[in-house]
């Protein structure tokens, strides 16, 4: 642990360029050589994949302890509070009604507005109640939409992840959309290309930064392995879905899955790596 830290410190110091001249020239030469050798003989194929998330649209349901606590908090707040204007009016009305019902009632003793008899506070409350009931909000949970795995509007309380079925090495499997890196573009551009080409047009996404959030590397089976291609490294880039318009014609089958459903679709080794950077919500 300490040695790792030391190595990192040394590498950071070297990259800051505060070394004497002789060693810089030597290092630059070696870097260039390494760069050339990398370009020529890097045995790993580079791929970039995009981890597109649709963030939750509605708040999730409260767990039992949260419900209990919410109830208790509201009770405590009510006890500690003061009477509001509306409650004072209710009390006044009640008092006036009781005085009216009394036998020795004299309406001339009343001071205050005369129209308070016409519109009682209770009536006001009832009218507000009516108005509230007349508004129908959209339903929180729609079972039919939840069943449809291809719709980005399922499971509004969780965050969804885009999965695409791709052919990898002769085998069809579900994974995050990925393509091979080409010369002259950064890995993020590769990821953007992967998103636009594989899952059809219409997914507007905001990529979060230039740095990859995870890596998955696998070696090719021994039969196919050669000197120049040992395996593949897949770099993942995070993106957030900004506008869910329907894609015109999806080029390959895709799914929107929650974190819990991921296990059903992804291979175990892949899932282990991807699980680390996908947040719970």
């Amino acid at each position: 642990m300490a040695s790792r830290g030391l190595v990192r410190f040394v590498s950071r110091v070297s990259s800051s360029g505060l070394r004497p001249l002789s060693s810089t020239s030597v290092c630059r030469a070696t870097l260039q050589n390494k760069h050339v050798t990398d370009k020529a003989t890097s045995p790993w194929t580079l791929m970039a994949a995009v981890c597109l998330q649709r963030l939750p649209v509605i708040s999730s349901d409260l767990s039992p302890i949260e419900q209990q606590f919410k109830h208790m908090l509201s009770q405590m707040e009510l006890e500690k509070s003061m009477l509001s204007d509306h409650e004072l009016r209710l009390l006044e009305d009640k008092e006036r009604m009781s005085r009216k019902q009394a036998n020795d009632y004299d309406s001339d003793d009343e001071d205050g507005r005369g129209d308070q008899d016409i519109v009682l506070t209770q009536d006001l409350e009832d009218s507000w109640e009516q108005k509230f009931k007349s508004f129908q909000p959209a339903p929180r949970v729609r079972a039919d939409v939840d069943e449809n795995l291809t719709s980005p509007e399922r499971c509004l309380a969780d965050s969804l992840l885009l999965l695409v079925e791709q052919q990898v090495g002769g085998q069809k499997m579900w994974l995050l959309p990925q393509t091979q890196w080409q010369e002259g573009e950064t890995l993020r551009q590769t990821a953007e290309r992967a998103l636009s080409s594989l899952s059809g047009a219409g997914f507007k996404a905001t990529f979060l930064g230039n740095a990859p959030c995870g890596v998955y590397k696998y070696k090719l089976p021994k039969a196919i392995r050669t000197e120049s291609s040992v395996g593949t490294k897949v770099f993942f880039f995070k993106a957030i879905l900004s506008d869910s318009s329907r894609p015109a014609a999806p080029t390959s089958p895709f799914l929107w899955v929650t974190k819990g459903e991921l296990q059903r679709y992804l291979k175990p080794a892949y899932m282990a790596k991807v699980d680390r950077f996908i947040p719970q919500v």
Partner: protein
Amino acid sequence: MAVALSRCLCRVLTRQAAPSSFLLGGHHHAVQSPWFAPAMTLKTSAPLRAEPKKKKKVDPRREQVIRDRLKKKLKKLEKVPPELIPIEDLIIPTKCLDETRERSAPRLPFEESEGRALLLKEWSRYKQEQHMAEVQAVELALDAQREALEELKLESEELYQAALKPDPLLFPFTHKGPTYTPPKTDYEAPDGKYNDITKVYTQ
């Protein structure tokens, strides 16, 4: 020029005066003619005989200085510190101090208060677990990113440098958070009128 003229005049007068007094002998109360006034009748004192005062520059400067001093004094007196803008949140409105608004505090039975205390403890435990899980998740994500960057560095230096560059187009980033009910696709919000009565203070 005026100085020269006056100087000439003086000399002329003295020249004129000297022979006339000599001639007249004892006539000290000489002829009172303005042109031949003897020098001695002129009230000459040392400062007068010296260079005439340059009144045109000194006086305005002095007056200016006096006026500046007065103005400074006025400014100092008028300098009132600006009135502080009241923070309306910190002023307790008089409505709250009204005694008629006090609620009758209910007497809670022992079980109720016990139940509340126990629920509070459970809640703090639940929240602590949630927080620990969040912190762990963040650490895991950071670990994954660090690993990815290390692998990328092993692969190619230029891609690594490109990955380290900050993205200038990302910020300002906005995203609408979750609401209780999802938005209705075909809802037309009714137009409302409102009167803005916020008090605006100027210093």
